[in-house]
């Protein structure tokens, strides 16, 4: 029953999920088991790269859930991604311990450099992994709750909402750039050594992080799919297409928007928390408005309102970006621009729109 609802009623999603599972099996084998001189060997660079793409896919899923289904366009989802990343970065920074340059047992290097006497209160507890993980979900969730409550209660929607989300992420960037904030200023947090006692650079750790990211994407996809196939999901579509009608049918539209916005922010936070140990750094650049816009474009390219399209889009655009920035570094931004113009003109339903027929009466 549930299998049918979540999987087989949507062959495209099931296909993408199958590819993900295949990747989760093949990549660790190709990296850990296959000998380095074999043509099937996959270097740790690729494992980390694909792991990073997976976290982007999770972020794209979070955006598609609110944009594709509820019609809430957030151009500031990098805020939640970044905050989740910072929570994990703080844990990793605390894990450095006395292995830092200054060798201080408690204070991270940048705090010693800025002559902090003791750890600021908001750094307490981040030496515990579970606490950091909890904060990676709680902080983005709470921010989304407060921000969304104010916005949706006042019926801010459409482009106006998109603009204030840009303002939100920009404000966060400016705040985190300040050294006085206590998050390492413009250098951010980096030089990580261990995660849960394992060295972050080790091959096995990278594979484990890759697997964790893949599992997070799969679980995130299934959770989103559960939501959009429930009556709740149909209310979201109703809100997207006819908000007034939904309200006069007795639904509290602001509650629905707020609920899904907070859920989406939590997903983005988890994605950020998985992203940071794989790239080895988190800095205020994650909060730059352009990054958030790019994430929305992954969804647009993949195909809005299908969930799996978001995953496809995140891989396609970031894959192209990786290739371009190596092969033709000068032309990436032109290619990106061209891609978006072409998709908007010729593929309004994204890449998956090519394969997806119009939804027929499933119920």
């Amino acid at each position, binding site marked *: 029953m549930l299998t049918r609802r979540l999987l087989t009623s949507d062959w495209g999603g099931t296909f993408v999920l199958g590819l993900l599972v295949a990747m989760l099996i093949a990549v660790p084998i190709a990296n850990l088991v296959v000998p380095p001189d074999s043509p099937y060997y996959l270097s740790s660079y690729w494992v980390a790269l694909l792991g990073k793409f997976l976290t982007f896919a999770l972020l794209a899923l979070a955006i598609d859930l609110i944009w594709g289904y509820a019609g809430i366009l957030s151009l500031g989802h990098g805020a939640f991604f970044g905050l989740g990343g910072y929570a994990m970065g703080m844990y990793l920074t605390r894990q450095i311990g006395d292995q830092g340059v200054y060798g201080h047992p408690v204070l991270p290097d940048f705090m010693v450099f800025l002559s902090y006497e003791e750890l600021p209160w908001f750094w307490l507890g981040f030496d515990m992994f579970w606490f950091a993980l909890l904060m990676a979900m709680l902080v983005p969730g709470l921010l989304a709750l407060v921000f969304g409550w104010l916005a949706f209660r006042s019926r801010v929607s459409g482009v106006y909402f998109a603009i204030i989300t840009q303002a939100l992420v920009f404000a966060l960037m400016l705040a985190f750039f300040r050294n006085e904030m206590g998050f390492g200023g413009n250098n951010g947090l980096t030089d990580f050594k261990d995660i849960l006692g394992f060295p972050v650079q080790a091959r096995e750790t990278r594979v484990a992080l890759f697997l964790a990211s893949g599992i997070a994407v799969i679980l995130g996809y299934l959770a989103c799919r559960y*939501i959009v196939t*429930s*009556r*709740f999901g*149909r*209310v979201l*579509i*109703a809100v*997207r*297409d*006819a908000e*007034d*009608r*939904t*309200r*006069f*049918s*007795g*639904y*509290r*539209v602001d*509650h*629905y928007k707020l*609920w899904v916005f907070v859920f989406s922010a939590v997903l983005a936070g988890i994605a950020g928390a998985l992203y940071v140990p794989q790239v080895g750094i988190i800095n205020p650049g994650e909060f730059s408005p352009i990054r958030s816009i790019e994430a929305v474009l992954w969804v647009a390219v993949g195909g809005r309102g299908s969930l799996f399209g978001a995953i496809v889009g995140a891989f396609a655009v970031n894959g192209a970006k990786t290739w371009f920035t190596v092969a033709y570094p000068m032309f990436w931004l032109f290619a990106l621009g061209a891609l978006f113009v072409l998709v908007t003109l010729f593929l309004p339903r994204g890449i998956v729109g090519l394969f997806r027929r*119009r*939804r*027929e*009466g499933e*119920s």
Partner: protein
Amino acid sequence: MSLAPYRQPIRRDRVFRLLQSEPDFSGTRDGVILYVDDVSVSFDGFKALDHLSLAVDEGELRCIIGPNGAGKTTMMDVITGKTRPDSGAVYFGRDIDLLSLDEYQIARGGIGRKFQKPTVFEALTVLENIELSLASDKGTWKTLFARVDTAQARRIDEVLVTIGMQDLRHRAAGALSHGQKQWLEIGMLLMQNPRVLLVDEPVAGMTGNETERTAELLVSLAGDHTVIVVEHDMAFVRSIARRVTVLHQGTVLAEGSMNQIQADPRVVEVYLGEEE
């Protein structure tokens, strides 16, 4: 902006909100289910409603007519909580003050509204449209895990039969004809088990045959429900109306049976004259 609400922070005729229990939507006062009392609304100086007063009895089928800009849609907006009036009051049932409630509370309390332009959820199927309108707990968590039980399924089938769409249940609502959308929206209202149906231009864009069936449907709904119809189509109004209210420039110009209305020289001048 009017300062009146701020000058009088505590109204003596009202209990504090937090001391009130959930509003009780049942019952009527002397058979009047909806009472619009001296309501005025203005938009940028334009008086959309000008001291409008109107009382509708329970079970009545009331037609409201009037030229464009007479304030018919604004009146519906006020009743359903979409627009807050500058002054006046709207009462529902025994003693509910509709102006203190939000749209969703008014909808859950038993006032259903059909929009002027038929508004259905086009990306969803007919069945899903009807299901969403089901009178049930509409909180977020309840909806996330909601299932249709047998009684509800029966009710859904009933309404699908009433609006004649039992064979179209899996059709996307966006693929329906204009008239079918009107019917679907009426069906969605019925699912809410409303005590009052506010129906804005139900036969716009319908064929003669569809109009006739709509008239039958609305007449059959009156009695169990209170039906308020805003319509331009005079032939249609004549075919269903028992009591007609004529709005003009935001206020009631005349009220009475269709014959009385047609004989009223003021009405003839502002409205009927244009038509005939």
